[in-house]
């Protein structure tokens, strides 16, 4: 159907294709070609140093086999799984909580509060990382200053609790989207359902679990889908905050790929790693989209 429709447009008005050309050119140069090139070099021993810099060779699946023996790769997968799990769980819970809180009757300034939640989301990742660094800095950060005031003492957050630190930053930024999506879902629930439930004598907890959650399942799935993709490719925030350290404790997959490509200059290996990340993202995407379709 789609193809036919585009085909008819093409036949009916050739000028349409001229308007698409600039976007297509940009798409090919910046997305499609680099994508294919990184897949191709993933099968070579290309590097930005040494003999293979300008004369690299095809090595088949050598890079892929190397991954499974690479302790850094295995570490990055573990860290990524932990990070994704806690990140999206935290974003969901916090987003759901605040979406419900701002809808409590009698709360004033709901719009203002809602817009406050969006600020971390619209802040660029690297800027957010540097702002949070000033919070976490061991000697002068204001978090430690607060803790000192209440008598708890200083903690080197980025050294002792690096994963928790980046999760905190991630929650502050990621929960905004969940907050919006779930909020939209809650707004769509007809008011008479709440009234009927109250007449039946349900508690607030029962209202949440038996009424609201089932009715906003679709919004939750969409939020999970978007947040998972965002977290899977999380880079600039972690790069700015810890750069994968200390000693790989926050080296998620994206940071590992970056370090392989631009610190070790092993572009062939990094290409193979990028392809693996792409496949994982595709699988997750297909799973979520099917779940959403079933829900619909």
């Amino acid at each position, binding site marked *: 159907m789609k193809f036919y429709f585009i085909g008819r447009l093409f036949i009916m008005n050739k000028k349409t294709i001229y308007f698409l050309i600039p976007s297509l050119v940009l798409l090919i140069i910046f997305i499609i070609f680099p994508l294919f090139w990184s897949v191709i070099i993933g099968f070579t021993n290309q590097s*930005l*140093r*040494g*003999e293979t*810099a*300008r004369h690299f060779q095809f090595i088949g699946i050598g890079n892929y086999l*190397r991954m499974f*023996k*690479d*302790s*850094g790769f295995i570490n990055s997968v573990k860290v990524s799984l932990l990070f994704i799990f806690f990140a999206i769980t935290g974003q969901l819970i916090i987003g759901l909580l605040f979406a419900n809180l701002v809808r409590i009757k009698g709360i004033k300034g709901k719009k203002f509060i809602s817009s406050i939640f969006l600020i971390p989301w619209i802040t660029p990742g690297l800027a957010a990382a540097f702002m949070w660094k000033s919070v976490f800095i*061991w000697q002068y950060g204001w978090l430690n200053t607060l803790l000192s005031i209440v008598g708890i003492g200083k903690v*080197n957050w980025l*050294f002792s609790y690096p994963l928790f630190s980046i999760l905190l930053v991630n929650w502050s930024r990621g929960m905004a989207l969940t907050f919006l999506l779930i909020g939209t879902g809650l707004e769509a629930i007809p008011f008479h359902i709440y009234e009927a439930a109250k007449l039946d004598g349900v508690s607030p907890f029962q209202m949440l679990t038996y009424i609201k959650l089932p009715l906003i399942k679709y919004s939750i799935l969409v939020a999970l889908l978007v947040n998972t993709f965002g977290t899977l490719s999380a880079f600039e925030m972690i790069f700015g905050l810890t*750069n*994968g*350290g*200390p*000693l*790989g404790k926050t080296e998620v997959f994206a940071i590992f790929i970056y370090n392989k490509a*631009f*610190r*070790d*200059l*092993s572009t062939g290996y990094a290409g193979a790693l990028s392809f693996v990340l792409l496949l994982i993202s595709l699988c997750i995407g297909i799973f979520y989209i099917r779940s959403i379709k079933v829900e619909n």
Partner: protein
Amino acid sequence: MNLAKNLRKYFRRRFRVKEKRGKIFMIKLESRKNVRLLGIFLLIVAFTFLTGIATAVSPAELSIMIKGGRGGGWIDILQEDLNEFENKMAEKGTPVKIELNNYEGKNEPYITKLALMLNSGTAPDVLYVESGIGADFMRANYFYPLDNFIEKWQPWEETFDMFKKAMSWAGHAYMIPIQSCSIVIYYRKDLFEKAGLDTKWQPTSWDEIISAAEKIKAELPGVIPLLYTGGPEAGEQVTFSRFLPLLHAAGGALYDEGKNKWLVTSEPLLETFKFYEEITKKELINPQIAIDADADQIAAKIFSEGKGAINQFGSWAYEIFWGPGAPYEIPNRDDVVGYAKIPAKSPGASFRGQDFVNQSGGWNYAIAHNSKNPELAWELIEFLSETERQAGYNAIKGNVATRKDVIMTDLYQQGEFLAEVSAWLEYTYMTPYINPGYTGAPRDNLQRAIGRIIIGDWNAEQAMESFAKALENDLGSEKVLYTK
């Protein structure tokens, strides 16, 4: 001839040209399309003509990229010298315009930038390259060979042999060394005095370093006795300034030049890991600072504030970190900062049977393979390498010279510290720093192993085992050698 004939036929047919006695008489432009085509053609001709004129009268262009930090000092002097070179070339009748690109960031991103530019053929003509990565770049054919230029070139004759070796690959020279360093054990004389230690300190074994650190810890709580670093985030100096000299001091090497293999297990390697294990267990270092991404800067600051007692680091730190106007200036530096050679693990136990060891790297000039003016680029390098000029650069930056003629200048000899640490070059063993491939997996895995010891995750045996396995996985079993 046929082409010209065909072009004439085409031109006549296209523009309906009428000829009279073989000369073009009239061009009949019958359609808007023809007018457009002719217009475009005339524009192209005019543009080509004007560009040609512009190229013919404009000066030649040359670009140079250096890693000079935030400017000031050396950069200002270099800019003046570049202006002088431009004037000199203009007087010669071959004007040149030089663009100076100063990279202000850290080492690792600078190397990445260089690699990307060289690989894509967009690098500036003259590059400022570190010796460690220079070895890999030479193997990648990123540089223009300098053999023809250095033949009978006096400064090359004056260069120390070990630097000549480091600048060459497969029998060809590709870089010109301009500065090097020695690795120094800096210590705070004022803290030593308070702790009851001799302020004229020259340790002769590792035990003396550790016992001095233990005394500092006991007598001066709150002062960090040792400022060693670890982990890949802390950067190059984890291995270059600290681990590798200690490995040589223990009688070991990381690379077997005869067999072209990496020695991933050995007794000296284990001993060196044990040194880190010991100083960690005895709490003579601060692990949180040691593995920080800015570990060197923090250590330099702590040392300048008198909160750190012993810092094994490069000779450049004396000027660049603690000198007048430096970020962590020590006002009475010459009185309170002492410096000592790195001792062998025990006298005579080092790699070549020496009582002391040293590590020297350096920065060099190279001409990019994509340079359109390699001869002009060489003239610039020649100019910047003049003896007095080079002595000035070395003196202001506190860098050890790589040439005998530079070291013998009065300007260079004026600096007591520089003159003394230059003499330590006799103890230097540059391998594996200058070995191709060192700055990749070998260094990365070594830094990781050291970091893990420092934070208490691994002991020395575990660190060496993990280092060996990781390097074998990265390079292949044919590139590694187990000797323990």
